[in-house]
């Protein structure tokens, strides 16, 4: 089961079992739904943006999905709440870049920091879309697109 462990690192299992920032909050400024129609994964993201200071006050989410998509949403909500819009967008791009890096290439730990626990999905191309679902949704909010996000790649 070592391969399974490389994908489902303890951090991921922990986030999927005890998702942080989970549940619909009392208030928010932006709501978006991320969907993966092939899997049936559905994540509702509730974001409070301070437009004046260009800062994400909070991120919460609700929904259902596999442990990768839930853990990834939980991890993102925890790590990007409180970040500036620009910083958050940079982390989102970094996340996308990381999961697109071929599995055979080692990841630079300094560059990716804590994100690296999701590096294992690179060995499972069909699961990459699970990992990116919430990140695509947040990107859409921060870029002011506000459309429903559908990942099928």
């Amino acid at each position, binding site marked *: *089961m070592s391969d*399974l462990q490389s994908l489902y690192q303890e951090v991921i299992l922990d986030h999927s079992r005890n998702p942080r920032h989970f549940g619909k909050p009392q208030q928010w400024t932006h709501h978006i739904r991320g969907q993966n129609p092939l*899997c049936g*994964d559905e994540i509702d993201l509730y974001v409070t943006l301070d437009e004046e200071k260009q800062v994400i006050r909070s991120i919460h989410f609700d929904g*259902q999905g*596999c442990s*990768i998509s839930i853990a990834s949403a939980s991890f993102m909500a925890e790590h990007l709440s409180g970040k500036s819009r620009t910083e958050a967008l940079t982390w989102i791009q970094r996340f996308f870049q990381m999961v697109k890096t071929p599995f055979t290439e080692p990841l630079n730990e300094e560059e990716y920091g804590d994100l690296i626990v999701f590096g294992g999905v690179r060995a499972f191309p069909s699961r990459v879309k699970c990992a990116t679902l919430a990140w695509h949704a947040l990107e859409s909010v921060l870029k002011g697109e506000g459309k429903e996000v559908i990942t099928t790649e």
Partner: protein
Amino acid sequence: MVGEVRPGTEAPNTHSERNKGVGNGLSTPSPFSVYAIRAQFPVLHRAMHGKPLIYLDNAASTQKPQVVIDTLVRFYSTTYSNVHRGAYALSEEATARYEEARQIVARFLGARSWREIVFVRGATEGINLLAFSLGEYFLREGDTVVVTEMEHHSNLVPWQMACARKGAHLRVVPLREDGDLDLDQLETLLAQKPKILAVTHVSNSLGTVNPIRQIVEIAHAYGVVVVVDGAQAVAHVPVNVQELDCDFYVFSGHKIYGPTGIGVVYGKEEWLDRLPPYQGGGEMIREVTFEKTTYNDIPYRFEAGTPNIVDAVGLGAALQFVELTGREQIFRHEDQLIKELEKGLRAIQGVRVLGAPQKRVAAISFVVEGVHAHDIGTGLDLHGICVRTGHHCTQPVMRFYGVPATVRPSLAMYNTREEIERFLAALEEVIAFFRRGSA
């Protein structure tokens, strides 16, 4: 686990059995030996993630026996040309092979005549053909089309589209908790005299076998035309369209050991004769002037353009292979396996099997408490086991059972008891991993 028996390997006497065995086109069915059958499917001998490949996604598509692969290669190498056109011997040979494949399909389905067999790309195109042509023929505003809650999206969406085009209504026969259709509701709906009933023979997500003969009888009593989606049925239950008495029957070649890109619409001659064509083009015409085109006879009227000649011939080879292996023996083997699989699944704590239909063949869906279907799928993949996870193009069924996705193992003639045991053992291991976080 299963000790010494490795499903990916051949039984000791395989070679002699292979030589006299299934698929050489000469002998009568030999005694059923799953190892002799496996020997004919090259892909089954490869490894995946360092383990013998266990292919349990047969409801999505089946693997191909050597005889089908060889038929394609040989046809391209020796006989290929366009059909129905050339005034030369090569084209006549190719045409003869293409038409021979049609005869094989007709015999396989128990059709009255080869004229009742239309080649299409697959079940999906077949249903779209029927939804279009039946729609044009007699669907009017305010009419009704009936489908069921267990249909694959491809036996649902084309009818929705036809209804939208014609201003007709779509009604749905409900599913029961046990995974069978509610036949009382079916009769109530049919008594309102819809124009068309479109129903699957076998459910791809639950494995339910519907009593088509009985359903057709009720439908015909109310004058309703019946279209049967046989995509999941032809490889796993006896099909004789004259006995079933359905008006149309549709299936895909790739789910019965044949190539992709080829499928069949069976239609009773008197029905096909009446229907307008689906697509226009070459082959389907008799005479074309700028004012008017008269159409060719059936089945060619429904085969516009150069058909998928080679894969039709490949499908013929696949159906002969099934006949020679022995449909009855295959179905008996698969029946034992699905029972074992269901029993094994029900014995695992936290596994919930969807439905318990009166008759289930070849496919079964389940969910695991606290573990998502996709995580199970990835875990099984690492054991070399291929299963489908997701909604299986039957979102209404998922909604009915209140689950987002299921795991669906599905069988074919080449699966073995050892594979089922290995699957169950691997599943328990994967579940344990997600329960405890390590294994």
